[in-house]
């Protein structure tokens, strides 16, 4: 692994290597529960909590976990934090818990979390692992927030439940239904890909220097 600075560890996951929009990890929750801003944020924060907790424990305990059973141990740690998040949400915000339903438990199989343990927390110091978890977690929250905001504004004409448009606005209901999830993410990805292509072309046309701009382009 290349040596990185702490700020790189923190910032990398936020946008350049955004878990959802660039690495395509954790698509299931990103599509399933982003029909309103509130649900998106709740899911984002729950995932953030699980990622942070797991990274902390994995980084702390990595010397005691034999290599042969590391994946099982990571899963065990992640599942523990997910169960805690599940019970905590049900006790603190029952309505949000009801809206998210089974998808809270499904944070366990969010590839992003296991991916960060395997790729980072199992190899680096506790502080770096926490920075990395904060960065990736923030990136995940941002991606979910973008989806949730777009879908709620278009599909319900409101933001966090506050109506934005007058009574004349006929909500585009399909956007808060399942097809809207696929279409929103698809459009978002195509938009990003187009934007990056434009930037790359501009960079190629201008100076000969083109850095890591094309890195994020979609498969």
């Amino acid at each position, binding site marked *: 692994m290349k040596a990185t600075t702490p700020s790189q560890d923190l910032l990398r996951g936020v946008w350049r290597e955004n878990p959802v929009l660039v690495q*395509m990890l954790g698509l*299931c929750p990103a*599509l399933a529960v982003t029909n309103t801003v509130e649900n998106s944020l709740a899911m984002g924060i729950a995932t953030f909590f699980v990622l942070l907790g797991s990274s902390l424990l994995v980084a702390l305990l990595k010397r005691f976990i034999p290599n042969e059973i590391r994946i099982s141990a990571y899963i065990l740690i992640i*599942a*523990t934090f997910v*169960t805690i998040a599940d019970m905590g949400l049900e006790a603190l915000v029952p309505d949000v818990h009801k809206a998210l339903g089974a998808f809270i*438990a499904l944070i*366990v*199989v969010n590839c992003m979390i296991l991916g960060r343990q395997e790729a980072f927390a199992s190899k680096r110091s506790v502080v770096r692992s926490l920075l990395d978890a904060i960065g990736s977690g923030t990136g995940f929250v941002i991606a979910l927030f973008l989806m949730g905001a777009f879908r709620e504004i278009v599909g319900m004409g409101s933001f966090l439940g506050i109506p934005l448009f007058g009574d004349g606005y006929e909500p585009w209901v399909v956007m808060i239904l399942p097809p809207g999830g696929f279409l929103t993410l698809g459009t978002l990805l195509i938009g990003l890909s187009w934007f990056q292509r434009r930037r790359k072309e501009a960079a190629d046309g201008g100076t000969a220097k083109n850095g890591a701009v094309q890195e994020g382009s979609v498969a």
Partner: protein
Amino acid sequence: MSDLFWILLSAMVVNNFTLALFLGLCPFMGVSSRVDTALRMGLANVFVLVLTSLSAWTLNTFVLPYAPYLRLISFIVVIASLVQIVEMAVKKLSPALFRQLGIFLPLITTNCAILGLAIFQTNRGYGLFEGLFFAVGAGLGLTLALVLMASIRESTELSDVPEVTRGTGLVLIIAGTLSLAFMGFAGLLSAA
């Protein structure tokens, strides 16, 4: 219409796991570029889902009433181990079947659809037979979605789509269109 039949059809088309609940997206995005692979992947999924339903029912009936907080962990551990054992058994007993379906087993052991099925089954309080019909319906629904997706992707391989849309973006737009089409099944099963 009997409840069991409703559960099967509901999981298969009306509330399709992939297209309405977004479960099992990993194989849907990854293994849907060829129809025959997609079909075998789907059938392997049916098999694992049925195993999952049985394990979840057993745990729910005999273990979890005493320790509800271990639900998630025990689901993961038991399902992963069981699938692993069955994989080894299939490999030993029928190498031909293993080549057809077995290679997908490790891939799907812990995808969202498997755990999702166990959790939905628990939340809805399904009994043994309801759970089995739910599993078969969900599996057939996954297979249907995978095969449909794969046949569309086989055609887009050869068509002249704009360069920027190639890849996941296009797959998601196609999935959205399929999901829209599947919404037409809503109301199919309400006898009211």
